């Protein structure tokens, strides 16, 4: 069955990729299956300098989900280019780099460096980071700031740019419009919802950082809603994510308006999940009467939501 999909200039052999931050730089998962089977690989966020991230504990389980506050730990953009990308170089599947930062300048520097590496076929812009210059307000919750950031990145990067939207906003459609207007080539949605858990024993938040990002099946209905809303106002390719664990979930995301999907938290429950989803997808599509992935995208539900 034909599972291939084009996201603008980017051709994927199938719509399934691991989500940023849940797959490291691929090495560990390559011990479980051949990474060439994946539609694409999104690597962990890169920042200008190496970061240690937050203190531990950094993860906590929640009902049908989890919280994380890794805090962008990574070896820095240069470290990634030197030590992590060589392993991915020979892969026959697109590698998408996730870019983060605390200032517009940092984002731009990281995006520029990664865009110049041939292994990287697209950039995913993680705008859920706190903007230190603006006193910690996320880049992802102010449409004007997101617009400016997107424009600056487009200026230095020739690679397709996917802006990854934060769900912690009242008006996701406004955010999508802003970044499309600024030149985004696609959207990734959604990042995590901000959450917290408190330990009744210690009376303190479980995460050392206090709050963390909620991911997993718990947030799937929010992701589906946002993708559906945004699909009504744009033709940009959308990489959908948020709680995917089954091939039926993939179908739901594509019917909502996604063109490809990313799997995050589920990799922790089952390291083989991406491979298994790809293997099972043709049967699921047939079960629901489709002969190709393209047919599902055309069957998209375009009812305007209220």
């Amino acid at each position, binding site marked *: 069955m034909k599972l291939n999909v084009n996201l603008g200039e980017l051709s994927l052999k199938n719509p399934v990729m691991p989500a940023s931050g849940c797959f490291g730089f691929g090495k560990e998962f390559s011990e479980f299956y051949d990474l060439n089977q994946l539609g694409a690989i999104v690597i962990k966020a890169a920042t200008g300098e190496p970061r240690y991230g937050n203190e531990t504990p950094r993860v906590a389980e929640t*009902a049908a989900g*989890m919280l994380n506050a890794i805090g962008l730990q990574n070896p820095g953009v240069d470290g990634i280019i030197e030590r992590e990308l060589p392993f991915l170089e020979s892969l026959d599947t697109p590698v998408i780099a996730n870019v983060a930062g605390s200032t517009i300048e940092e984002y731009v520097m990281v995006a520029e460096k990664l865009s110049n590496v041939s292994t990287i076929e697209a950039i995913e812009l993680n705008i859920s980071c706190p903007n230190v210059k603006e006193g910690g307000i996320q880049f992802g919750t102010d449409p004007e700031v997101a617009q400016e950031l997107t424009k600056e990145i487009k200026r230095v990067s020739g690679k397709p740019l996917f802006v990854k939207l934060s769900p912690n906003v009242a008006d996701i459609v406004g955010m999508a419009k802003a970044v499309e207007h600024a030149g985004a080539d696609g959207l990734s949605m959604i990042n995590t919802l901000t959450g917290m858990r408190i330990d009744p024993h210690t009376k303190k938040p479980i995460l050392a950082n206090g709050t963390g990002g909620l991911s997993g099946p718990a947030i799937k209905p929010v992701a589906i809603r946002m993708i559906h809303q945004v699909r009504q106002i744009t033709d940009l390719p959308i990489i959908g994510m948020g709680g995917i664990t089954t091939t039926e979930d993939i179908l739901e995301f594509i019917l909502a308006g996604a063109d490809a999907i990313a799997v995050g938290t*589920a*990799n922790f429950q089952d390291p083989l999940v991406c491979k298994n989803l790809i293997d099972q997808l043709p049967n699921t599509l047939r079960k629901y009467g489709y002969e190709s992935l393209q047919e599902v995208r055309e069957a998209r539900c375009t009812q305007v939501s209220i």
Partner: protein
Amino acid sequence: MKLKGEMEQLVDQPGRFIHIKIGDGSFHMLRRPISIADVDKENHTITLVYKVTGKGTEWLSERVAGDKVDALGPGGQGFEITEVKNEKILVIGGGVGVPPLYHLTKELVENNDVTVILGFQSKEAVFYEKEFNQFGDRVQTLVVTDDGSYGEKGLVTDIASEFSQDSTRYFTCGPLPMLKAVKNQLVEIPGHISLEERMGCGIGACFACVCHSTNESGYVKVCKDGPVFSSNEVIL
């Protein structure tokens, strides 16, 4: 709990762990790390010993013989002891850190003399002492409790100092405050510390389980580089 499968062939060192899926479906998205407390290569089983502290270990405790459990592993680096011979060794355990030390001691005693110090909160919390006593003459096992309700009253470090001059090396596993105290006290002999940290992936990909380190990158991953580290590698 004993698990039967093929995994025991892969357990080359004491101190490694398995990462266990909890429940069916996707209510519990995170696996639980549990140390391998013993291995029986003839019967193809591994033994786990755990304390029920929440939903995951509660679910584990409800499994009955014959149930299947989805376990990933063995993960990480355990206690490297192939070269450790004819030494006088101090093994220090606290609470749920005790189980992996059973497997460790079983292997150590073949070539070494071992003093085991086990610390618990109170009499009710004491477990596995009997098992340690079965190792025979080359193993001496001492128990301390915080409240003195069993064995000596005090902390493991209170007695560890008595043995430190005499020992060539220590191995320890237990709660973080205990590990810190042990590390700070036993500075003169090489130490091997098994850490606990909340985990995501359990295979080194998510950076959930890091610990500050003296190494070049400034960190180690408990799930992949550990859980066992040499005492001068980690900053507690």
